[in-house]
């Protein structure tokens, strides 16, 4: 195993009771590469993220994040969940959410000047500084997603994990999100989960197709056969480029537009 790999997984097995969710998953991501994880709902994408965050302990195999145990590496990892996981009625403003990303450890206390400065930088980075006092519940889906990206960025992470950054988001907002991600692309290692590989085709270096087992593909090859094999049924390609150049496949799958597990 190389020292320069930000993520290394070797023969990772995760079982929930009798169900094997991940079976012998092996892959690695070198520094500053962007990897897209694709696969059907229930295929183990979210579980893989939880393993990388140290929230789920694999029954077998080895996982290293930034050369450390995943639970120890957390401080250097930014994680963006899907915004639909968050209670839409919670009274909180944009700034409040991003600042929460700066909490560290158990000790009682208040935010420092550094915390406020980091919050400002992160909000400026995603273009939401003007909206910092707005209530989260009144934002559009795309803006909510950007708030959560800012929260993930607020600690200057070396690795960014994004869960379905475009789920429930309109096409034009998707394009905007893509622009933000492109700006981050060269600054850090990014792993993003998506059931729509075409969205990130210009951005990613490799695609990890995951459905219990995992297979790594360079971007150009993911079209056609590999995806069909993964989803177990024919998959149509859809032109999908938002003016950002060429595009790849887009699995037209039964549950493809749902909110994922």
């Amino acid at each position, binding site marked *: 195993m190389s020292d320069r790999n930000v993520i290394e997984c070797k023969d990772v097995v995760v079982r929930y009771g009798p169900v094997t969710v991940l079976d012998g998953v092996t892959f690695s991501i070198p520094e500053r590469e962007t990897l897209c994880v694709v696969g059907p709902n229930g295929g183990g994408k979210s579980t893989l993220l939880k393993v990388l*965050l140290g*929230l789920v302990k694999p029954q077998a195999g080895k996982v290293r994040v930034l050369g450390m145990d995943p639970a120890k590496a*957390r401080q250097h*990892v930014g994680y963006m969940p899907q915004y639909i996981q968050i*209670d839409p009625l*919670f*009274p909180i*403003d944009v700034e409040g959410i991003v600042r929460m*990303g700066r*909490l560290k450890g158990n000790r009682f206390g208040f935010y420092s000047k550094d915390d406020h400065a980091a919050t400002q930088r992160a909000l400026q980075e995603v273009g939401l500084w003007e909206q910092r006092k707005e209530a989260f519940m009144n934002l559009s889906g795309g803006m909510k997603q950007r708030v959560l990206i800012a929260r993930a960025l607020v600690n200057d992470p070396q690795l960014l994990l994004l869960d379905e950054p475009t789920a429930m988001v309109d096409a034009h907002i998707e394009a905007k999100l893509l622009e933000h991600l492109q700006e981050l692309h060269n600054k850090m290692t990014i792993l993003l989960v998506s059931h729509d590989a075409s969205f990130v085709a210009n951005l990613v270096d490799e695609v990890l197709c995951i459905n219990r087992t995992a297979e790594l593909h360079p971007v150009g090859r993911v079209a056609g056969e590999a995806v069909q094999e993964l989803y177990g049924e024919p998959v149509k390609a859809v032109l999908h480029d938002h003016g950002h150049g060429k595009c790849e496949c887009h699995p037209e799958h039964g549950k493809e537009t749902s909110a994922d597990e």
Partner: protein
Amino acid sequence: MSDFWEVLVDPDIGFLRAALLMGLLASLSFGMTGSLVVVKRISYVAGAISHAVLGGIGAALYFQRAHGMEWFHPLLGALLAALLAAVVISLIRNSGFEREDSVIGAVWAGGMATGLVFIAKTPGFVDPMSYLFGNILILSGTDLLLVAILDIVLLVVLISGYNRLQALCFDEEQARLRGIAVGWYYTLLLCIIACTVVLLVSVVGVVLVVALLTIPAAMSGQHVRSLAGMMTLASILTFFFVTAGIVLSFLADWPVGPTIILLAGIAYLLQSAVKRLARS
């Protein structure tokens, strides 16, 4: 109304002043804890804790009267029972037990049953009504002192732990990723609720606690952009309901606890109706 003012300022009659002071003292912690209960959506846990309190009150009364344990004040019994219920429920949840709701139901009814048995076996006559439905007008000086101490402890914990309690309620997964011991904080949150419930029991009684804990917070949630704002507004509303309830019950000769809850309930209904009308 002039009767009310006369009694309020009469130096020989202290109960009204004590009741109003108690309402003022307790409103802050009610509003803050109530907001946490509402955003975390655990009013059923608060319900279980409050009903378990009767077990502690019953036990304290029994041991005081049957065994002469004078130090075992009913408020102390209430506090112990509430904390025990909070710890049991949080341990069950933290262990990932799938039948959490059944345990909550068992604590709810079991606590109450324990209290009723103890009260039945206590020598002399005990009227459970004031414990079930509260009576802020019969608070003693000791009650007030206990309540004030508990209230101050709660405020210190709630304010200094605010950021982490907010993180726990907002996004538990993220809180865990930031190195916060989510299980411990959940236990702490339930213990805060337990202490608040004990304060509330002296105002509105075991059965009506949940309403006063949740209605002001639920009403506030729609008008604020932060949890702190929700807590402030909920505290103000609680103080208003408690004060207005005391005045109204005095004038109309109604029981205090139910009067407070009715006021709060009517205000909540009106707010919802106005909102609905404004939307259509």
